[in-house]
Every structure is written in structure tokens, then in C-alpha cells.
């Protein structure tokens, strides 16, 4: 594995403004992503987990600059891409692709697969128009769709096959980085395994760097090298996958893991059940964002927001109580 860093994100913030009253000029913000930093090595898979509204999808879109960040820097292969103009960004995006959650919504129903998959090649002028068909056939073969089906339309395929087409669409450009935003969440369990295996084998074959965003902690553990846990727009814990799951340090991660229902934890009494809901990102609590639901919360937690600290073994955690 090459040790070079492919993507580095420094203190990314994305605040969405909204009006507090219909006619008033006063504006307030939804703090969707609130200071996220991480780096991703070439050929590495980073899993980002968190509950709905924690900002994980916004983060993915900000990295590709599909949404402009409020502040912060994004370095892709050493180049700061947070400032470059739109036109250059478009041509850079062929190296970084996104796979969406719902293959029923992400594929244009009026276009045949041949065009859906070849569109990127056409836009980026990556090959001779005559070769497009060949390239599309090759990539469809890779993801397990018969090339002779390339004149069909999305509705003629099942959910799993559609997600394969979505993967082909990203893969055809030979990107260096693929971000999967809940790539298997809309699929049935038996199909989920097919897509996970496909993504994993492609990742190995092309030494791709991957960011997998999911709320499913089981899936994230299986595919990732590093796992980051997000809560209210911040990364609160990050570690290599075994380390994070076997030795979770942040009380939120501990609660999250114990909340996953598994047949083997049946009857286990010491499950941690968090009370209440995630606070609104419109009014995040002061201090540690988790202190409103945390059992360990003390005075300090409601005042000072903890930084993400290195606690050894490549394990980072943002909590005042972890020594």
C-alpha cells in the first residue's frame, strides 16, 4: 500500500443559513458540518458512521464541492481544491466520484444504460466517441452486468442491478477516489452482500480510495480500514476499524455499538440505551455536543467543546473523560 495521502480535509465547516422569521432580515444557521478534519491515504477505505442529521452526507458533497464549504480547506493529491474555479473543478471531479443511496432515484429513467454509463466519458472527453461503447461494455462486465443489456433502460433492472450500474457509472472514469453515500442502504440483505463484495473487489483491483458513508455499523466495519463516528456535525471518534469496535472510548460510540441489535446480544442486560433525541443542528448545545444525552457529562462538558485528541494506536477521540 502506498503511503501517500490522497485526500486531506482541514477544519471543514458548512453552515446553511435560514431565516428565523418570514420578513425579518435576521438569519440563523444550520450547523451541518462543524469543523471536520481527516486525511485519507491512497488505497484506504474510510467509513463514516452517524445517525441521520449528523452531517455525513453534507460532508461528502462538500468534499466534491457539490456544496461549497463555508470555510476550511480540502486537499486532493496535495492540491487545495477548495479555492479553484468551477470549470477546473468539473475536470477534477472525474477523479473523484460519488455513488448515491437510492439507485431508483439516481439513474435517469429515460436514458439507456449505454448512455448512463458512457455519459461521463462523453462529458470529460476521455475517449473517442467510437470507443465509448467498448469502454462501457468492459466496465459493465466488471460490475457483473451483461454488456448486451446496455441498450436497456433502468426500469428493466432490479434494485441490485441498478446499483451495479451506478457503480459502473462511477468506475468508468477510472477515478482515484470514490465516495459511497449509503451505497447499500436501499437494498435487501441478500443483495447488500453482493454490492459490498463488488465494491471490495473493485477497491482491491484498482487500489481505489474509498469513503463509505453509512448508518449501518455492521457494514462499515466490514468494509473500512478506518472508521470515523460523527455526531452533530463533528467527528467525535476515529480509529482503525478493529480498535474502534473493540475498544470504543467515546460514550456515544459505546452507546451506538450496544444499540445495534444482534441475535448474540439477546438478553444482555448492560446495553446502554440513550435517552432523548439528537439535538437539532439549528441549535447545537454549547460545549460538547453530546453532553445532553451523555451519562458521564459534568460541568466542563457543557462549557468547553472537547478537541479530537490522539490517545495512541492511531485512535482519536473528542471527550473530556477519556484520559
Amino acid at each position: 500500500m502506498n503511503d501517500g495521502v490522497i485526500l486531506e480535509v482541514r477544519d471543514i465547516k458548512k453552515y446553511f443559513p435560514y431565516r428565523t422569521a418570514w420578513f425579518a432580515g435576521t438569519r440563523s444557521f444550520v450547523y451541518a458540518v462543524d469543523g471536520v478534519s481527516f486525511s485519507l491515504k491512497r488505497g484506504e477505505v474510510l467509513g463514516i458512521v452517524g445517525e441521520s442529521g449528523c452531517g455525513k452526507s453534507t460532508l461528502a458533497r462538500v468534499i466534491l464541492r457539490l456544496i461549497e464549504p463555508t470555510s476550511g480547506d480540502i486537499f486532493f493529491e496535495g492540491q487545495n481544491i477548495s479555492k479553484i474555479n468551477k470549470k477546473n473543478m468539473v475536470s477534477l471531479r472525474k477523479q473523484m466520484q460519488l455513488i448515491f443511496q437510492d439507485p431508483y432515484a439516481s439513474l435517469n429513467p429515460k436514458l439507456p444504460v449505454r448512455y448512463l454509463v458512457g455519459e461521463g466519458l462523453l462529458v470529460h472527453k476521455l475517449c473517442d466517441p467510437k470507443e465509448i461503447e467498448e469502454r462501457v461494455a468492459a466496465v459493465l462486465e466488471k460490475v457483473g452486468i451483461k454488456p448486451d443489456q446496455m441498450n436497456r433502460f433502468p426500469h428493466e433492472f432490479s434494485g441490485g442491478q441498478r446499483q451495479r450500474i451506478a457503480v459502473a457509472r462511477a468506475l468508468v472514469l477510472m477515478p482515484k477516489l470514490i465516495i459511497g453515500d449509503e451505497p447499500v442502504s436501499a437494498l435487501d440483505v441478500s443483495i447488500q452482500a453482493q454490492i459490498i463484495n463488488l465494491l471490495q473487489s473493485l477497491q482491491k483491483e484498482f487500489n481505489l480510495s474509498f469513503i463509505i458513508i453509512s448508518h449501518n455499523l455492521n457494514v462499515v466495519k466490514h468494509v473500512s480500514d478506518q472508521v470515523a463516528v460523527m455526531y452533530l456535525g463533528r467527528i467525535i471518534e476515529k480509529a482503525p476499524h478493529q480498535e474502534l469496535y473493540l475498544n470504543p472510548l467515546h460514550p456515544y460510540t459505546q452507546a451506538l455499538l450496544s444499540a445495534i441489535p444482534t441475535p448474540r446480544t439477546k438478553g444482555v442486560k448492560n446495553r446502554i440505551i440513550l435517552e432523548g433525541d439528537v439535538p437539532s443542528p439549528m441549535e447545537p448545545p454549547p460545549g460538547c455536543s453530546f453532553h445532553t444525552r451523555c451519562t458521564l457529562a459534568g460541568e466542563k462538558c457543557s462549557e468547553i467543546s472537547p478537541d479530537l485528541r490522539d490517545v495512541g494506536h492511531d485512535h482519536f477521540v473528542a471527550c473530556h473523560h477519556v484520559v
Partner: protein
Amino acid sequence: MSNDHAILRVSHLSTYFFTFQGIAKAVEDVSFEVYPGEILGLVGESGCGKSVSALTILQLIPMPPGKIVNGSVYFEGTDLVSLTNDQMKKIRGNKISMIFQEPSTSLNPVLTVGTQIIEPLMLHQNLSKREAIEMGIEMLKLVGIAGPAKVIHQYPHQLSGGMKQRVMIAMAISCNPKVLIADEPTTALDVTIQAQILDLMRALKEEKDLVIILISHDLGVIGQMTHRCLVMYAGKIVEEGPTDDIFGDPCHPYTQGLLDSIPWWHEEEEQDRKPLREIPGTVPDVFDLPSNCRFLPRCPKAMDICRESEPMLKRISDTRAVRCWRMGR
């Protein structure tokens, strides 16, 4: 366990949908019993007929195009299938109630929580409005809503997803039903909220002496919550038995495949890096089901006899049954 004290007995239930595209055999020959004090799980992938089975019990199938072509649902000595709509209304929400997957679509957005929660109480329990509101506040307290007197005057959009599902549960149990059918009650919720709701359901089952039929595609939820479960595939039950036995020693190749295809987070490092065992192919088209074994095209262990005819659901022990030619021969 004898059949006599089963609370609900479903036998040979078949529900078809007659559409322009053809006949969709959504549920075929489904039989099961629910015994006092148990949580029964119905598990399977989308389109396997688990929700339609539940809706059929309560006669909530849109007819037409749907039709219950065969079978009976015995509850307290009467066959629910033979009841008229008016008679059925006295059962629904009163003796058998149901909660659905998406709490935000099953609550009426323009009515307050209070208006919705007192409706079944006034209808089935003949309470006055004032009594019903008092009772409603009690119910909201029971399901763990903080400040029930305030929440009762709020509209659904003012509540979070978890709170809405609690309100749904409060409505469902307000008339002290015997049976609660929960159709994917936590699928739309986050994991930490899911844990809260599952915990609540378990506590209510004890307190209210309920019988719960829990429908889910999530094997984790089924494994953790239920005593017995039915695994469904393409409209039929393929495996039935105590949950621990099924998860410990699955007999049907579909159940085996399903359990193998899920990564569990507490697995060891080596296991982690191995590719998942996948079930090849996809679920058969509901309009064009194979006449032999329905799992045949995806089965890794298919034999000659599987191609010839469809297996029956065979008892392999006192408590377990499997629909596979490989078993119980």
C-alpha cells in the same frame, strides 16, 4: 404447546392481487399460530409477503385488486376472514392493533396528537371526551413521553421520529389489545432511537400482557426480540421455529444464506476481510413464480427433485418446520 390456547390461528392463508399485469401471489398457504406471552417474528426481504400477511389478518388489503382467496384467521373463536367490514372495525384498534413503519405518514399531520389518541378510546371504550383525554395522557406517560400534557396538544410535525413512533404505540395499546402487529416499527429510526423503541415494546409486552407479531427485514432485530420466527420467501414460509434454534442452526438454504450474508460488527479480524457469502441472483418475479421450489434459481444446494416439484413445509422436530427437499426425508 397445544393448538387450543393459541391466541391467533392463521391457516392456509392466501392473498392474491389481481392486476392488469397478471395475478400477483403475494401470500400463499401461510399458516401459523401465536401463543400467549410471545413475540413472533416475521422476517424476509421486500416483497416476500410479510406485510401482506399482517394486513390480511386485519383485513386491510385493498379489495380489489387484492383478494383473500383461501384460508382463515381464527381469533377468539371467530374467523376474521368471514367478518363484515363493520364487525371488523370493532376488532381493529381494539383487540388487534397495528403500528406501521413510517410514523410520520401514519399520523395525520393536521390533527393534534390528542385528537388522534382519543379517537380509538371514544370509539371502542365509550369514554367521554374528558375521560379519553385523561386516559390519553396516561398512555403517553406509559410509553415514556416527557411532558404528556403538553405533547397532547402538539401536532405531529413538532415531534421527533422516535416520539411519533411512541405516540403510535400509545394509540395502538390504548384499548388494551390482545395482539399488537408491528410492521417494521423501527426501520425508519436511527439505531439509538431503535433501541429505545424496542426496549419499550418489550416492557409493554410484559406490562400489558400483549402478544406481539413483529415484522422486520432486520435479522438483528428479529434475533434479539422474538421467541419464535417465520422466515418468508416469495410469499411462502420457508422456515419456522424458535428464533435461537433458527439462528444457531438454520436449515433452509435461504435462511443460511441470509445469515451468512450479513457482516456482524463483533466478528474477528480474519472474518472481516473475507468476502461476504452472497446469495446469487434476485427474488423471483411475483407475477411469474416458479412452480417448483421458489428458491431453486438461487439455491447452492439444489438437487434433481427440487426441479420436479415444490417441497412442503415439513416438521423436522416438535417446534421446527422447513420447506426444503433436503430436510426431513
